[in-house]
């Protein structure tokens, strides 16, 4: 079949009109179409397919479709006989199939392929997430296992170090091993923190706390690092906050300690400054700004951009993975706070932690009838004045001296209203002198319950007789401490022997920890079972026995009976038990125990008992 001349001309015109095309291009298309009709040359079809694909425009596609339908309708009408009509119909169907139906099928295939690809992607993403979660869990588990093992290694290294049996090189190796273990432990803790933060497992633990006490703990944490850098000094400008706050103390401390440690790490000389300013907000909260600045190496702009990203470590010779600042930043966010930084390369950095925190719904400090005597030779700044006013508002009687001689005279002649607390802010050389004075005062019975405090003691010489030593300032709640909590050193020198019998090593360790800290001169013998304890009791005289009630083999009651059977007068025997039930207490009384010491250990109760025994032993 071949187009007639008038048909060619009509089609050229139609194409020109429909597609705003010039004559030559329209003729070219019609020639190509004619070639398809006459010689079955498929170039026309491919051109058409390409154009539709290339344009990707449904209006254009519709125009083409209309044009094809119109063209075949026209040719159908022009056909001379049925045979020609049939040829035209077949041709149209074939063209329509190839250009449109196939295209639709192809599009559908594409759509299906796209759906399959999407499914594969979804599946892969899911698997990836699962892998990541598993990895995180695995990291958390491994970190935990490592930390537990490292705790043990660290602990046993400390025990070897305590024994002081190693000499020379060996001692050095031990120190290096201890140091390396600590570093490793810190890294593992960092990884654990990041994992917990990423997986949202980090728990907020809120409690009431004093801000000044929290900052003292932070400073204590970097004290050893600071000691190693004699040219580096810490300055503090801590506003006094006369109430406790309610928040996540541990995590705030973690952020501050992280920044302070970094400041020490990156500053070799000059100073590190820690300041705290507060502002009460309208909703009864307090808005706190902790600012930590240093005169260290500072950061470039590029380094500043990545400071809070994980694994940013600028100078490779410094220790660590670079997770600390990332953790601090994430923690600040978690606490609804903000950690920001400003830095100048070569000059130092300033970190600011802004955080809102609730004011604790708290009772006042009870300082009624407390006598506080203070020597302040250094300064009377606003914070100091606020602290004194606060102590007086809480009922304390405060006597302040700025003259050393008057202060000493007062202490040597005081008869009534003996101070419960003597706080000294002196010059560096002054502290040594006062240490000797306190030694003398402690021999006088009237000072037996006085707590002697060294404040602002920024040096590394040891003081022997002060009860409390603070490098910058004392925590305000120190003045609310119960007088009986102050243990006198001369009492701790009384030599008594205690036998503790318990099958659980942890119980004995904790007991030993508490007793040896307060009473280094007490001899504490530990037995891990009833028979062992009886054996030890037979060969040594004890002033007190602590006996676990529930033990395998002989239980506490049976051991007590056997001790009684030995004949010699028994020292006070205390039941040591976590089962504080009435039936148990009655049984303990019935057996003739001197009393019961509860688990968990309540140190103050234990100390009272020990002091009573010391007192009896003394007399």
């Amino acid at each position: 079949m071949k187009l007639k001349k008038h048909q060619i001309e009509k089609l050229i015109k139609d194409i020109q009109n429909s597609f705003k095309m010039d004559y030559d291009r329209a003729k070219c298309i019609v020639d190509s179409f004619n070639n398809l009709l006459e010689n079955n040359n498929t170039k026309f079809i491919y051109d058409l397919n390409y154009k539709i694909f290339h344009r990707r425009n449904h209006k254009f596609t519709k125009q083409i479709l209309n044009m094809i339908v119109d063209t075949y309708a026209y040719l159908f009408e022009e056909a001379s006989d049925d045979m020609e009509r049939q040829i035209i119909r077949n041709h149209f169907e074939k063209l329509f199939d190839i250009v449109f139906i196939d295209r639709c099928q192809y599009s559908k295939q594409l759509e299906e392929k796209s759906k399959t690809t999407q499914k594969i992607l979804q599946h892969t993403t899911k698997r990836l997430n699962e892998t990541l979660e598993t990895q995180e869990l695995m990291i958390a588990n491994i970190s935990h296992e490592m930390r537990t093992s490292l705790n043990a290694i660290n602990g046993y290294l400390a025990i070897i170090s305590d024994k002081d049996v190693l000499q020379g090189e060996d001692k050095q190796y031990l120190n290096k091993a201890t140091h390396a273990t600590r570093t490793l432990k810190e890294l593992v803790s960092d990884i654990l923190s990041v994992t917990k933060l990423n997986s949202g497992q980090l728990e907020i633990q809120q409690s009431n706390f004093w801000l000044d006490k929290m900052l003292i703990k932070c400073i204590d944490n970097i004290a050893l690092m600071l000691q190693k850098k004699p040219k580096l000094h810490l300055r503090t400008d801590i506003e006094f906050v006369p109430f406790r706050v309610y928040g996540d103390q541990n995590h705030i401390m973690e952020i501050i300690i992280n920044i302070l440690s970094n400041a020490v790490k990156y500053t070799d000389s000059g100073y590190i400054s820690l300041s705290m300013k507060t502002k009460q907000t309208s909703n009864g909260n307090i808005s706190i700004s902790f600012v930590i600045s240093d005169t260290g190496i500072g950061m470039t702009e590029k380094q500043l951009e990545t400071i809070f990203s994980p694994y940013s470590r600028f100078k490779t010779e410094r220790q660590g993975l670079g997770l600390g600042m990332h953790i601090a930043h994430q923690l600040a966010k978690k606490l609804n706070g903000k950690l920001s930084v400003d830095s100048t390369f070569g000059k130092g950095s300033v970190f600011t932690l802004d955080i809102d925190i609730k004011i604790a719904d708290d009772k006042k400090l009870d300082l009624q009838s407390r006598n506080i005597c203070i020597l302040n030779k250094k300064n009377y700044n606003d914070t100091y004045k606020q602290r004194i006013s606060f102590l007086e508002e809480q009922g304390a009687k405060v006597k302040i001296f700025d003259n050393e001689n008057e202060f000493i005279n007062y202490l040597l002649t005081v008869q009534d209203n003996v101070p419960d607390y003597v706080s000294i802010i002196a010059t560096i050389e002054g502290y040594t002198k006062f240490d000797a004075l306190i030694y003398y005062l402690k021999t006088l019975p009237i000072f037996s319950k006085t707590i002697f405090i060294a404040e602002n003691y920024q040096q590394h010489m040891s003081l022997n007789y002060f009860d409390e030593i603070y490098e910058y300032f004392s925590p305000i709640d120190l003045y609310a401490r119960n007088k009986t909590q102050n243990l006198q050193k001369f009492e701790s020198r009384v030599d008594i022997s205690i036998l503790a019998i318990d099958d659980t090593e942890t119980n004995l360790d904790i007991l030993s920890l508490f007793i040896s800290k307060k009473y280094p001169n007490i001899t504490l013998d530990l037995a891990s079972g009833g028979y062992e304890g009886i054996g030890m009791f037979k060969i040594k005289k004890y002033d007190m026995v602590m006996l676990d009630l529930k033990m395998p083999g002989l239980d506490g009651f049976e051991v007590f009976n056997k001790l009684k059977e030995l004949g010699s007068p028994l020292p006070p025997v205390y039941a040591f038990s976590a089962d504080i039930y009435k039936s148990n207490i009655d049984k303990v009384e019935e057996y003739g125990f001197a009393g019961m010491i509860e688990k968990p250990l309540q140190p103050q109760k234990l100390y009272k008992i020990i002091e009573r025994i010391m007192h009896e032993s003394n007399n």
Partner: protein
Amino acid sequence: MNQIIDRTVQIAHDYLGAFGFEDDKIDSTVAKGIAELELYLDKLRELINKEFDFDTVDRVLHTIKGILFQLGNSDDGRSIDQLRDEVNAENYKIKIEDLIDKL
């Protein structure tokens, strides 16, 4: 079981730290305490596959409770203590399995 160990390590450090002990001393005490706690938790796990023996189950739970208390983890200590009152020959497998799952 990891959670209780993690929790106890954290609490023990805070608890003993609050009394002002030196870090080294805390580290060694906690490490030994945790090692002992793990030992008794393993014993507890073994008990599921054994015939019920009240004294043994009670003693292991008592020891775990004691260690937890001594390390300052009173909450978990109290949970274990409660279980000691509830456990009997019929329910001990389920109770211990439940406890292990929770820990």
